């Protein structure tokens, strides 16, 4: 038995009253809204089968989208035109080519081409590595992270040293001459006569303002190890090497200067990202290994 309805209800009380018409109206509105939302999602959501090409794509090939931006880029690359200036034939040709490519890619998946073609395998490995690296690049590190990284690896961040020197070489049989020459040089910078005599002998070499890495190549590791510690105007002790006895005279040695954070920041960012890429790759690989079922034959364990 329904409750009797008082006749003097205010508009607020009216809302609390059971009304069949209002209930139907609400239900209708709800159903309409639900239908709209479902329809919108059905025809636009990615990953669902649809008969409508999403606005960001130019075609769907077996539900696989062909991106509009890739299509425009392809038009520009092939014909040097944008969409409004492309002829119908140009548009059709580019679209046909892209659809053909997509069909062949899909077919290659069905045929499992990757299991037999080493080029495809290699391309797929590269593609996955690039994907991992791209993820690392997108994650922008904060200044604090970069500063911490710099503090941890600050020894890496310095200018390349440069040096200018004479490398006087004496035959192994003339070790005494080398010792005498070293003594002469210690008494003062090489005189023009000394240099002229040395140049005429054709032994040794002079380095004129070279980066450390180049000096190391030209002198060889053992001589460079001695040279790098010589201050300007210093002379080394005679260094016996298999080819000759060497005496080094340092004209100018500009040692590497550490970069402060501001100067090193770009390199720090690059190194940080490279490390992040390395970590991500290692992490991904270990994840793949962990979830994989790998069986190894007894004889190759």
């Amino acid at each position: 038995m329904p409750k009797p309805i008082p006749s003097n209800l205010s508009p607020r009380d009216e809302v609390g009253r059971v009304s069949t018409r209002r209930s139907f109206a609400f239900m209708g509105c709800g159903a309409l809204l639900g239908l709209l939302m479902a329809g919108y999602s059905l025809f636009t959501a990615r990953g669902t089968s649809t008969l409508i090409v999403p606005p960001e794509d130019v075609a769907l090939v077996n539900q696989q989208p062909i991106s509009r931006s890739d299509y425009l880029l392809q038009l520009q690359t092939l014909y040097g035109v944008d969409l409004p200036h492309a002829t119908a034939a140009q548009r059709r040709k580019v679209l046909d080519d892209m659809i053909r490519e997509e069909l062949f890619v899909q077919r290659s998946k069905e045929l499992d081409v990757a299991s037999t073609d080493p080029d495809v395998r290699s391309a797929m490995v590269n593609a996955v590595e690039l994907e991992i690296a791209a993820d690392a690049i997108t994650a922008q590190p904060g200044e604090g992270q970069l500063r911490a990284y710099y503090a941890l690896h600050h020894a890496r961040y310095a200018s390349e040293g440069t040096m200018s020197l004479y490398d006087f070489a004496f035959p192994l049989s003339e070790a005494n001459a080398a010792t005498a020459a070293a003594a002469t040089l210690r008494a003062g910078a090489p005189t023009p006569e000394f240099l002229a005599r040395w140049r005429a002998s054709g032994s040794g070499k002079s380095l004129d303002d070279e980066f450390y890495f180049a000096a190391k190549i030209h002198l060889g590791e053992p001589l460079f190890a001695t040279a790098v510690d010589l201050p300007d105007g210093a002379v080394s002790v005679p260094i016996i090497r298999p080819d000759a006895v060497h005496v080094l005279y340092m004209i100018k040695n500009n040692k590497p200067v550490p970069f402060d954070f501001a100067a090193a920041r770009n390199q720090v960012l690059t190194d940080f990202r490279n490390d992040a890429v390395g970590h991500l790759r290692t992490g991904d690989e270990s994840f793949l290994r962990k979830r994989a079922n790998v069986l190894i034959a007894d004889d190759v364990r």
Partner: protein
Amino acid sequence: MRFSLFLAAVACLAAAVLLQVSALGSRLLRADPDAIPATEALMAFALGRGKALFEVRCAACHGISGTGDAARGVPDLSDGDWLYGTGLVSDIEQVIRYGIRSFHPKAWNLAIMPAYGTAQPSVRDAKILPLSPGNIRDLVEFLMSQQGRAADAASTARGAEIFVGAGGCYDCHAADAKGDSAIGAPNLTDHITLYGDGGRAALWSSIAYGRHGVCPAWVAILSPAEIRETAIFVYSLSHPRSPAKAALLGVQ
């Protein structure tokens, strides 16, 4: 009854707004990107959204006003000087979508400034050989002269030879040093400098230690619509009549 009508009207209004937004979003994506700036409705639709996206995704490097940071080699997006492409919406969109040296296969990955003051200037190209400190000094003088600044004449002459010879600089920057926006090689003759003040120290650093700035690829993070909206906002930064630029400059 009145209340029911009111609710129905609100629902209809909401649906209409949703449809309108959806329709504009579709139009935006289907439109020729380079023609969008001429369409006021699409610009108005995209700019507000693009600004919000820019502030979240791009401002960390480019700054809230998009003017970049020369100390860190982040380009100014409001000066109308484009390193990649010619500043069309489609060019900007490509950069946002796939990035620069982002490791994405479709990114702008070609040009990397070699580090001529290191043992291996280029990881990719073993044919690029190091230069001596003297060579680099000569190149710096040559570039100073190209920018119309005071430079040592003898050193400039030697630098000019290295530029088109042993240094191989012409290969990317062109023989006239005016660069090539098709590969992101900057013009070295103008007064717009990407790194520092363009003085001797900055030039030395660029030549000796190389440059390879990075812009991430947003294709996997932003939707196509968001990428386009961001591109339109970036475009608007270098076009002073746009509402975004006017707002940034405080102009009515």
